[in-house]
């Protein structure tokens, strides 16, 4: 059967499943809506957390990024999983015991301050929207490539599906839907990974395969082979790093601390019945996450080998079909600089910027681009986002595997988008309306506003997907940097320092935010030309600066708290109570 037909079948079946689950688990109260009534089994919650956590970035982009970064790609692997450890050990059990709906709830009550709550809401909304924009781009890519509809139609279909299960089901619907989505996405990730590992290394376990030897009979190690290929083409060795150690350290730390501060993942721990369940569910979640995260670097290695071998030195009409398919969408391009009719894949950018295509085709039939050319010998442009999606095609796997990957990519993007939308809607209806501006809201009204907020947020997210702002990639550094510099230190100090007061927490958040924000804006937007190691503070890139922002936050908060009055007795009692696992009711104590 054709890929397109199969994709329609797979995507249709999985979407039908998600909607059926949403209808079956409709939310009837705000507790159901925000935290699933607090009654979700830890293993199911672990799966849902894993799906929530692993976004389009993990499923679609990560292996591709690692494939082109080599050893330095570890910043994402270590950053995202290591941050999860911080979250599980330092935040999750205590926030579960605290037992309210949202992260701003915690900040607002712990620091007995409306201002602190509003600062937290603003951070949260900014972080979440940055993230959603990325998810919607993922949805758009999958639809436009595999269903051959235009991106706008694809995004609208995706929005419709998310709307149904997020608005009807709330957290309850989302939790069970996400558990199903985890199953779909991990199956879709592992099947091609195992196939490709067998093809390249002969081992059915990708995690071991990329340390093994090539299956082509040469007897050489896989990594050595790849190092050799890349060195020949003028790249650095795959197993060596290109970034400085301090920058790798800072980026990893910023991603870790930022990840631990991501509100849509923290809120997942509010859905289990007990504190000990919150801990256990964190363990299951990381195990489910680790399956994909240990496979990704293997996929990266195999994909890089396959990519070079199927493209380099080929004539345009000898290139595999996938090359021309992705060229049609504009995510790969070729510029025949030396007019030999063959694709030379070398180190360096082939031309400046992302390709902008003209109307005409070249002598070999390629789409001509209008970008200014560069001095490098490289003629091939490839968008890193296509690696995972194109991988089954590159390795010539059966059509049903290609369709499966499309369904998995959508599951990853939609599960994260749904979790983010819920967090945004809770921030608006609960933290801004109910807790700040109109405390007299009834539960029914609050639920209505929460649903309206989801619809509005979804509409905005859809616009991001259809008209992706050119700066999506630039602002991703923001999401993690700001979460690291603002939310994480405030929550951590709230639990581990009884002496921390509102003056300290607010001063810390503001200093951390302003510093990180200015640094990123300066290097990404004001003076992008000077965005090089020589100009960076301590040699730390904008991607890693959230680490310094977080350190500043801690330092300022500590000093200011010493100089001002300790928090009131009731708040200190609250901290004592949070530290004890016993006596956690269902999340929410009011209403």
């Amino acid at each position, binding site marked *: 059967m054709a890929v397109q037909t199969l994709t329609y079948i797979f995507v249709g079946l999985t979407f039908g499943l998600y909607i059926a689950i949403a209808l079956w688990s409709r939310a009837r109260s705000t507790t159901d809506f925000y935290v699933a009534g607090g009654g979700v089994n830890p293993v199911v919650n672990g799966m849902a957390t894993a799906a929530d956590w692993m976004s389009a970035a993990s499923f679609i982009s990560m292996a591709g990024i*690692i494939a082109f970064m080599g*050893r330095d*790609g*570890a910043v994402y*692997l*270590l950053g995202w*999983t*290591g941050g*999860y*450890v*911080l979250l*599980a*050990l*330092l935040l999750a*059990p205590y926030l579960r015991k605290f037992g309210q709906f949202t992260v701003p709830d915690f900040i607002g009550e712990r620091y007995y301050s409306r201002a602190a709550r509003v600062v937290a809401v603003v951070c949260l909304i900014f972080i979440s929207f940055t993230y959603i924009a990325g998810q919607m781009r993922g949805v758009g890519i999958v639809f436009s490539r595999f269903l051959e509809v235009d991106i706008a139609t694809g995004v609208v279909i995706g929005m419709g599906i998310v709307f149904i299960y997020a608005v009807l089901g709330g957290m309850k619907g989302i939790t069970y839907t996400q558990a199903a989505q985890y199953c779909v996405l991990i199956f879709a990730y592992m099947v091609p990974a195992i196939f490709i590992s067998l093809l390249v290394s002969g081992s059915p376990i990708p*995690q*071991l395969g990329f*340390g*093994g*030897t090539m299956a082509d009979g040469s007897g050489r*190690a*896989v*990594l050595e082979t790849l190092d050799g290929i890349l060195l020949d083409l003028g790249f650095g060795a795959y*197993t060596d*790093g290109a970034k400085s*150690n301090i920058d*790798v*350290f800072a980026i*990893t*730390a910023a991603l870790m601390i930022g990840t631990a501060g991501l509100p849509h993942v923290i809120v997942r721990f509010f859905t289990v019945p*007990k*504190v*000990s369940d919150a*801990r*256990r569910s*964190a*363990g299951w979640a*990381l*195990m489910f996450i*680790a399956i994909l*995260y*240990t496979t990704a*670097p293997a996929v990266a290695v195999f994909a890089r080998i396959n990519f070079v071998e199927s493209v380099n030195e080929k004539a345009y009409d000898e290139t595999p079909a996938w090359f021309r398919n992705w060229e049609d969408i504009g995510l790969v391009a070729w510029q025949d600089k030396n007019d030999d009719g063959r694709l030379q894949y070398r180190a360096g950018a082939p031309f400046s910027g992302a390709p902008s295509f003209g109307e005409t085709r070249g002598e070999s039939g390629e789409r001509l681009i209008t970008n200014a050319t560069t001095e490098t010998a490289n003629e091939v442009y490839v968008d890193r986002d296509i690696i995972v999606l194109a991988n089954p095609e590159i390795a010539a796997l059966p059509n049903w595997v290609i369709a499966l990957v499309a369904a998995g990519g959508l599951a990853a993007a939609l599960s994260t988008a749904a979790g983010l939308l819920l967090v945004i809607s809770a921030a608006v209806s609960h933290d801004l309306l109910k807790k700040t501006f109109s405390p007299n809201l009834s539960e029914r009204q609050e639920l209505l506003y929460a649903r309206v907020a989801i619809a509005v947020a979804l509409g905005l997210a859809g616009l991001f997907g259809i008209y992706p702002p050119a700066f999506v990639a630039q602002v991703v550094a923001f999401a993690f940097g700001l979460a690291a510099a603002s939310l994480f230190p405030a929550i951590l100090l709230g639990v581990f320092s009884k002496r921390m007061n509102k003056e300290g927490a607010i001063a810390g958040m503001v200093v951390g935010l302003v510093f990180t924000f200015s640094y990123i804006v300066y290097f990404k937007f004001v003076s992008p030309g000077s965005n090089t190691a020589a100009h960076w503070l301590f040699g730390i890139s904008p991607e890693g600066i959230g680490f310094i922002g977080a350190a500043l936050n801690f330092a300022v908060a500590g000093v200011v708290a010493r100089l001002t009055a300790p928090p009131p007795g009731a708040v200190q009692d609250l901290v*004592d*109570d949070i*530290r*004890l*696992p*016993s*006596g*956690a009711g269902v999340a929410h104590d009011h209403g």
Partner: protein
Amino acid sequence: MTGDQTDTTSSVFHHDDQGNPIGHTSHDNEAVSESRMSAYWSANLKFLGVLLVVWFAVSFGAGIIFVDTLDQYSFLGFPLGFWFAQQGAIYVFVVLIFSYVIGMNRIDKAHGVDDDDESSPAAGGNA
């Protein structure tokens, strides 16, 4: 209160230095005494400290700071530092969180603040 109250008491509650059961009649579950609270909290912090040292050692230590040194050794066909950075640290993370689950449950029980039998810890005979 029924006759098996003493048994329940000795199994649920923690003992003081002389090995005597700590009296509990004045405490319900919500009002854990100040000293028990701080003993529990410092046990918790110590355990967290150990886990975080391991966490730092496998990721920032083996995967970043000492990566080039470790790369001279080979493990399962990988340069060792590269393996820690792209595989090993993640496996250790999973083990860390499950150790945390098991260790914390023990610490909770030892200090009588666990949430396993939420409804009845201080009221032995009611169950």
